[in-house]
């Protein structure tokens, strides 16, 4: 095995073993430390993956997916399942983001375990299992393996919400589990529609349609897109999201919003568009319309929200709408916008949820009506919240700008009355985003301190700063130098679009 292959296996194996170790090590705090170390090792293993053969210099026809590194081992031949992992420019940024956010969440749990009954050690173990599922999904180059990892995430996340969440956590957790299982069973059927027709589950061979008939592609795309639309989530399949995000503990919300949703958009690009390009072309207008509907409805609902966490949760619906709009255009600009939008949303929303959790922990309320004047009593917290909100509303120079602006640009470039209308409406949706985030800031930061806010200590804990600083820096870095993400993705995106009819 080469170094790259060892790394690939390690990226999935280290958190899995870490979860086991966390569960068996005696002592709650020791378990949390072991888990955090495992998460740190995972992050370390993901970084050198970038140093592979980027291979965009060869001649002649090339496959549409060219992994930098890959491992391909047989597992269950009777089910067309191979243990085939690989990483390329589309997946690598997401892999690093996942490893980073998990590490931050584990470190945060080291400092504070959410109340609710469960032990902190179990929470860390579950976070690591979730990480295994997410990383596996991003790395899988076998359709069946992709489905397998997609499913791995479901129950541990359910347990995180149901074990450590807010007052209404059981209902929210059940809704999350049933909704997302609904999505993943459709994925299962979609996967085997493709595998039965093509006779292989290898994503490298399948990307570009692999000679699937138009009928098969339309059926496969419909099933796969529905599956990913539940996860992303796309309006009108989003209703699990606000409850799950609101009820989940802070670290759960961070992982949910930061990377779990990206499994949907990543799947849409890599699997749905890659495997059934004709189906994607056929369904693009519907996808575009739904995406814009999500942007507008998400924005309008946010304007009327009265709860901090719920507002941020609903804002995800709008942001993911921009990502899906980018994908729906099926242009290089659009896909690039989707990829950078994914990363930006992951970084910024994770930060927002951390901050919302901090506010809620201190003030013991998340209701906007009971919060005001945060900048008087806790200026640093208010400042960070302002930064994150401004980044999320898409101020140029911060990470949120690129994805949203270029999704709109891609729709305009796509041309035609439909896409122009969609572009205009999406731009309007962007304005709505600004409106509700500014409303949020006015309600929370400004004004006279409310009774709930009046007694807050101004300082921030070291653990909080440690968890938030990387996100703040990344939001700045991706905003100032989007090439950090885009330079890796441009090759794979061009290759992918080369096979879309």
């Amino acid at each position, binding site marked *: 095995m080469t170094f790259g292959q060892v790394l690939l296996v390690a990226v999935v194996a280290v958190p899995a073993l870490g979860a086991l170790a966390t569960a068996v090590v005696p002592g709650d705090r020791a378990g949390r430390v072991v888990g955090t170390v495992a998460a740190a090792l995972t992050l370390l293993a993901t970084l050198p993956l970038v140093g592979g053969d980027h291979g965009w210099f060869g001649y002649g026809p090339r496959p549409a997916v060219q992994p930098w590194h890959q491992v391909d081992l047989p*597992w*269950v*031949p*009777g*089910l*067309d399942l191979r243990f085939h992992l690989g990483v390329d420019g589309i997946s690598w940024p997401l892999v690093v983001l996942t490893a980073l956010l998990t590490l931050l969440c584990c470190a945060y749990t080291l400092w504070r375990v959410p109340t609710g*009954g469960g032990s902190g050690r179990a929470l860390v173990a579950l976070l690591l299992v979730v990480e295994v*599922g997410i990383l596996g999904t991003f790395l899988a180059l076998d359709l*069946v393996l992709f*489905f*397998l990892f997609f*499913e*791995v995430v*479901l*129950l541990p996340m*359910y347990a995180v919400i*149901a*074990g450590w969440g807010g007052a209404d956590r*059981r209902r929210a957790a*059940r809704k999350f*589990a*049933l909704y997302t*299982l*609904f999505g993943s*069973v*459709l994925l*299962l*059927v979609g996967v*085997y*529609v493709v*595998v*039965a027709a093509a006779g292989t589950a290898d994503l490298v061979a399948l990307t570009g349609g692999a000679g699937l008939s138009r009928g098969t592609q339309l*059926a496969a795309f419909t099933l796969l897109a529905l599956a990913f639309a539940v996860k992303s989530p796309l309006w009108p399949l989003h209703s699990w999201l606000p409850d799950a995000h609101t009820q989940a503990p802070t670290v759960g919300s961070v992982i949910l919003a930061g990377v779990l949703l990206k499994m949907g958009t990543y799947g849409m690009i890599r699997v749905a568009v890659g495997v059934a390009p004709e189906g994607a072309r056929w369904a693009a207008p519907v996808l575009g319309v739904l995406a814009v509907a999500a942007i507008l409805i998400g924005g309008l609902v946010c304007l009327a929200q009265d709860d901090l966490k719920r507002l941020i949760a609903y804002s995800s619906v709008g942001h993911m709408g921009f990502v899906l709009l980018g994908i729906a255009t099926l242009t290089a600009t659009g896909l690039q916008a989707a990829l950078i939008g994914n990363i930006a949303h992951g970084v910024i929303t994770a930060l927002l949820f951390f901050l919302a959790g901090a506010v809620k922990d201190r003030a013991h309320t998340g209701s906007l009506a009971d919060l005001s004047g945060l900048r008087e009593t806790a200026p640093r917290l208010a400042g960070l919240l302002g930064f994150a909100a401004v980044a999320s509303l898409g101020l140029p120079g911060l990470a949120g700008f690129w994805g949203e602006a270029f999704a709109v640009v891609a729709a305009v470039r796509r041309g035609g009355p439909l896409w122009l209308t969609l572009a205009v409406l999406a731009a309007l949706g962007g304005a709505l985003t600004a409106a509700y985030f500014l409303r949020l800031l006015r309600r929370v930061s400004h004004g006279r301190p409310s009774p709930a806010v009046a007694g807050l200590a101004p300082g921030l804990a070291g653990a909080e700063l440690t968890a938030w600083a990387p996100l703040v820096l990344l939001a700045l870095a991706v905003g100032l130098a989007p090439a950090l993400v885009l330079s890796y993705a441009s090759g794979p995106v061009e290759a992918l679009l080369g096979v879309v009819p």
Partner: protein
Amino acid sequence: MSLVQSVDNVAMLPAYLAAGTAVLVLLGDLLVARPAVTVAVAALGAAGTAAGATLVGTAGTRRTFCVGDDCSWVWGGRAALVGAVIALLTLGVLALSGPLLRAGRTPVGEYCFLLACAMTGGVVLGAAGDLITLIVALETLTLPLYVLVGLRRGSLAGAEAAVTFFVVSVVATTVTLLGAALLYAVAGTLHLDRLGATLADRADLTDLPLTGVAAALVVAGLAFKVAAVPFHAWAPATYDGAPLPVAAYLSTASKLGGVVALLAVVQRALPGDMTGPVLAALAVLTMTVGNLVALRQRRTVRLLAWSSVAQAGYILAPLGALALAAGRTGDARTAAYAAAVAYAIFFVLLELAAFAAVVALRPADGDGGTLADLRGAARRHPWVGGAFALALIGLAGLPPGLAGLFAKVTVVRALLAGHAGWLALVVALNAVIGLAYYLRVTASLYATPTGAAAVRPARTVALALGVATVAAVVIGFAPQLVLDVAAR
């Protein structure tokens, strides 16, 4: 032609072992009269039967009791698999019976004897080559269970359950027999393969209304045994009234027997275009009704019973692909049968683990109790509760219960290979309904416990649970093992 038939006694060895176990148990109970000896003999006999079945099976297919090319006893890969699994399930159920037998309300000798008799029926079943052997074997498998269900002294619920089960099951057998007789009237043979060949060759026979009626009767009678909707109403009442280990046997070995019988008839004797639509309808009804009703159950064993009704639907589903012309091509058929067998194997293992966990968590002579009795069980017994949760999640078909996940994947794959996409979607959506109640039970295991002190699980029960769980984990990571033996 000699009138004396030569009998291949090696091929019969597994049946001899199973029947010998029953006889030895009876004699041991009469002569030695010590419960420990009786149970040990039954356990050794079951283990020996499993070993014998496997050994004879690995040496290639052996036939005996032949008339020309048609044999009534075929010991091949499928028979070896069924025999070994039934014997191992018997062994597992014996282990679960420890607390029940020690509690003293159940006669040990009779209990073990009847269990060994049922095992004999199951072992013969897999090898049956004609309809009569098949029906007699199936009846040998279920007849002892009528008594076992009601064997507990002074249990009114047990007696009620036994009578329900007896009446329904006898009617089902009669219906199957009538169907077999009509098939004989039409085709003039009872050997499964000959029957299949005759019906395939002579289109005029399949066009007869009588053939359709006969096939419907056979399938309906066997559907009673697997508790497929609408022939399921006996199952929940019977399971709940029976002692827990017997309920475990009913929902694993007995159900496996029904599946094997149905599979033998559908695969070898009856034309696919006739049975396919019926089986597809049965499968859809069975899983949907089973899952929907299970949602409302408050008693543990009733919930497991309804869930096992639903699981029977998943087992039947691949056979439903035969309803379409594309599902009746050679490859698709083979895939469908293999998928049904594989699902059945995955299922009985997880179901045995689930029942073992319930036995472990309940007081020695108790029934399944309500779901509220299980509240917080996993916090008092982390290992037993964890194993129970794993089994339930496996039955729901989700990681970390990989065995159950691969079972569902196998079924969906076989259905799509047979172009029955709609049926695959029904299976998939049912998995979502299923998760709702499996999740409810699993969540209550980890809820904050209320009152009731912890019961220490018996050692044999813990052992059975451990072995079943380890086996489920192993085949979860290496499902190819099961797929290989199922495809033989």
